């Protein structure tokens, strides 16, 4: 039982974080809060990838004669670039939020719907 928990704890937390982020995106009306939720979602995916690449007893994939076992470097590469792309897209989202605020005077989703006559 303990072994099952230890084997899957990373995945479970990744799923919990993903769902918290997902819920923040769909259920919260504030656009900045939505972007923070999106970041949490994103980090949960990072965590899932990196957890899958971990090898027990391994070390960071920087080659040295003293070590034999290394963790899988491929997820690291994928996630490394994803983080920087993530902040670039977050900046784009925040730029949109600033423009929406300037045009509508609010960043709450229901007030924006009201302003657009979509209720």
């Amino acid at each position, binding site marked *: 039982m303990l072994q099952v928990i230890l*084997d*899957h704890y*990373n*995945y479970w*937390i990744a*799923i*919990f974080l993903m*769902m*918290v*982020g*997902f*819920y*923040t995106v*769909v*259920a*919260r009306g*504030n656009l*900045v809060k939505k972007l*923070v939720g999106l*970041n*949490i979602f994103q*980090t949960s995916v*990072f*965590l899932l990838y990196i*957890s*899958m*690449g*971990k*090898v*027990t007893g*391994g*070390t960071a*994939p920087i*080659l040295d004669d003293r070590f034999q076992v*290394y963790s899988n*470097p*491929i997820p*690291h*590469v994928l996630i*490394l*670039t994803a*983080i920087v*792309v993530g*902040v*670039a*897209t977050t*900046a*784009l989202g*925040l*730029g949109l939020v*600033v*423009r929406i*605020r*300037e*045009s*509508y*005077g609010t960043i*709450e989703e229901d007030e924006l719907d009201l*302003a657009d*006559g979509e209720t």
Partner: protein
Amino acid sequence: MIITLIDIILLTFMGATAFAILRLRSLFAVVMLSGIYSLLAASMFVSLDAVDVAFTEAAVGAGISTVLMMAVLALTGERERLPARTPILPLVVVTLTGAALFYATFEMPAFGDANAPVNLHVAPHYLKNSFAEVGLPNVVTSILASYRGYDTLGEVTVIFTAGVAVMLLLGGRKGDDAGIKREPADDAGNADSGDDDDRDTRGGAA
């Protein structure tokens, strides 16, 4: 054993921080907590041997992201309004999705398994041959810049594009460019400029 304990504590902290972000109404506190969340994630990545990723997450997530969010809060205000109704449907969707994913984890290889499929395909080749082929001790850099250089070129282009897009959105002075502000008037063909009074009447009409 001690590493496992550290892992579990860090992961639990991450979960708690994320939940606090969901619950809090003050956006200032939310942004600060998201910085803490990134720092916890970075610590977790160190413990999972992903030192390059941890470095990036600490610099980007805890540094630049927080600064940008603060700058936006200064422009937009820092209180979140309470939603008008309790959202039941999102909660149901999230619970069902979470349950399905939770069920799926039992098919995943155990954490730290050296024989997991993900660790068997090209990674051994990189770890074994990259020093002879590329000559760098840091395998992550070898893959990033050489084996998958094409990928990274794409990523740099994405960053370039995001920078250009933010320039387009925020580059002009407030209100004097052909931006979002004047588009509804052009489309609808009336003089409705979208300031406060007009919005109320339009909302009422709908």
